[in-house]
């Protein structure tokens, strides 16, 4: 008994010390964004029935649309963040369209670099969808239990595992620095751009736009639009609404995107080809006022205002508001 009493005392003391140490260095708990967490939200969206509004897109949606704010602004609906960083939203849109248990609505991002370009950023969404459809019945309970811990403990962060810390000490001679992003349990990605070299980030995104694959040709674009529209129409036939949204980008990056994917050749064709309403942030002054510090993503403080403005715009247009 005394062995276990000492064991527990030592373990609790060591873990508490470590937790306090990392917190003192500025670390805060963050939920791990993995297939399990995504799957949990996906399942909740199915359970919410016709009131569900799922947000599918890229990291711009993750950092820019706060489901908690949207829930507050449009209480008749329940918003679920299903965007996946660096990935195409269209496999998920297709899956939602084919899922007979999904009866909700969708806000789908139209990211120029993903929608209007031939790239195969579908690996993660496909893997996560596969996990969602084939997970065992204990998987959701496991995910919920893990979230409980991850929400509360910095020790659960991947950045402070002993191997990562040791490696940092040996190779760079310093302890890890807190990450500027952290996930909430509702998958809102809180990005604090006050702690980032924004010029360097902007250069990175610009390189991505300029050196990525060529934009779609006209026939390719028409084919893609037709596929997207087919999925959207199917959701509409089930009684759901679909809204396409081009998220905010700023400064040089916005200019580069406009240059590579000229509005009249891409966005306008897209809007004409789909049967669902489409919102471009540039056309809504309240949305266009939000600025991305590094060109591509919104800071978490700006994201709150952006989400409120988006909710107001949806209400103004009568979208996703009335209970069907």
């Amino acid at each position, binding site marked *: 008994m005394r062995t276990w009493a000492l064991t527990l005392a030592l373990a609790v003391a060591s873990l508490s010390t470590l937790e306090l140490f990392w917190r003192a260095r500025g670390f805060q708990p963050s939920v791990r964004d993995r297939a399990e967490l995504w799957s949990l939200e996906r399942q909740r969206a199915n359970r919410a029935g016709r009131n569900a509004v799922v947000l599918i897109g890229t990291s711009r949606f993750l950092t820019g649309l706060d489901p908690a704010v949207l829930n507050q602004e449009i209480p008749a609906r329940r918003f679920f963040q299903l965007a996946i960083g660096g990935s195409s939203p269209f496999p998920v849109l297709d899956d939602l369209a084919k899922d007979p248990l999904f009866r909700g609505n969708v806000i789908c991002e139209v990211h120029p670099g993903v929608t209007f370009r031939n790239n195969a950023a579908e690996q993660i969404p496909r893997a996560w969808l596969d996990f969602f459809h084939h997970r*065992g019945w204990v998987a959701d309970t496991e995910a919920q239990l893990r979230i409980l811990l991850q929400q509360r403990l910095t020790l659960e962060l991947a950045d402070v595992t002993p191997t990562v810390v040791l490696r940092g000490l040996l190779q760079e001679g310093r302890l890890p620095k807190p990450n500027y992003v952290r996930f909430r349990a509702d998958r809102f990605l809180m990005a604090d751009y006050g702690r980032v070299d924004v010029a360097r980030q902007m250069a990175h995104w610009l390189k991505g736009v300029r050196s990525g694959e060529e934009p779609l040709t006209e026939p390719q674009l028409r084919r893609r639009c037709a596929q997207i529209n087919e999925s959207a129409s199917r959701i509409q036939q089930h009684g759901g609404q679909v809204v396409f949204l081009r998220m905010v980008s700023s400064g040089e990056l916005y200019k580069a995107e406009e240059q590579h994917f000229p509005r009249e050749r891409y966005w306008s064709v897209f809007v004409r080809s789909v049967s669902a309403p489409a919102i471009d942030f540039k056309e809504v002054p309240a949305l266009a006022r939000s600025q991305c510090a590094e060109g591509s993503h919104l800071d978490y403080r700006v994201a709150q205002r952006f989400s409120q403005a988006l909710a107001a715009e949806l209400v103004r247009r009568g979208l996703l508001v009335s209970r069907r």
Partner: protein
Amino acid sequence: MIFNSLAFAVFFMVVLFVHHLPLPWRVKKLNLMFASYLFYAAWNPPFLALLWVSTVVDWAVAQRMARASTDARRRALLMISLCWNLGALGFFKYANFLVDDVTQLLAMVGVVYHPTMPDIILPLGISFYTFQSLSYTIDVYLEKIKPWPSLLDYALFLAFFPRMVAGPIMRAAFFLPQCLQPRPVTASQFGWGFTLLVLGLFEKVVLADGILAPVADFVFAPGTRLQFVDAWTGTFAVSGQIFFDFAGYSTCAMGSGLCLGFLVPENFRFPYAAVGFSDFWRRWHISFSRWILDYIFMPLQMKWREWRTWGTAAALLMTFLASGIWHGAAWTFVFWGALHGFYLVAELLYRKWTHNVKFLQRNWVCVAGCLSTFVLISIAWMPFRARDFDAALAMLRIMMMPADAMGACLLDWCLVARVVLIMTGTLWMQWRLRNSSVEMQAERLPWWLRAVLVAAMIVALFTSPGEDRAFVYFQF
């Protein structure tokens, strides 16, 4: 449900709580049986039916065998058990493999055949529980044990959740007598059970998944252009990963069983300290080695005893071919089994010719023997882990011909150092403890040091939230 999950922690606490309530022994056993079925159903509920059929068929066969009046009838009953168990195992595990191979074989002789590939899911733990169930009916047939009267006890024997999906493969004579009387758990048993659980999780989560698996995954990833150091580091990382993963599972099984008052047999005894391959198989996956020794090797050796050493060698080869097939439906596993068979035959012949040489008993010769055994066993893990023969051969070529692959190492030095440190430490520790057991070592330590070590493992577990990998042996 896997041991390294929070769902298991909650499940286990509830099961423990109910098990230690003042309830009749039969109710406690029912609790354990339902908990075991729930544990199994967490993966894929429909396959519970298969487990139930195995339970009822083998229990009923054994009952009837005891009442059978003739040998022919007893043999017929044994055949029913063999056909059911091996049939189910064959169908679920090898159907895809067979269809694929037959197609390829026909293609080689110019016959183009495109069969519909059966899309069969391998039920979790089927290789383990069919072998366990088979050992029972064979032992009853051989009159080594009497048929067990209680179906509840037998169902618990097959489904007992601590060892359900990856062994140890228990024998009826070991487990069923434990079901007769209530099994009170003393505080020290409870404490030791939890210590084993923590040790097993530490082996799995921290050592296998956290430290060794990333290196093994990198080195065995398709398309990696490896160098000499990468290949050796990856091979040793796989050796360590497989050991800590599987030994970790078995240790968790022993620990959780003990907390419930049941003994689960030891499955690993410092295997990388083995000097020679027969010694290795006495230390590695002990319950499986004993199974194949008793039910495959011994009957074959008896049958071929007139051929003396060559008969034994042939029996060894056949046994380890079967062992390879048991491990997986792929030629790489068969090759792995055959390689171990050859190792054992070579050792048999070597021992026969050198049994009087005193020089071989010197300490440094034993150490060299241990290291050589470890290296050869690590090489044998390559086909076990590689996706196909080509990948394994390419890796072997790099390891054996350093001149062609002496470029800059792809793994960063931290990863190489990690593997070297962990594997050197493992070999050193296993060598030091080779003639004892974890329990004996723990008893020798002062109580406070034991507490410090277990606390350190708990801290490491909490601070290593890596990938949630299933146990490697679940796939078998």
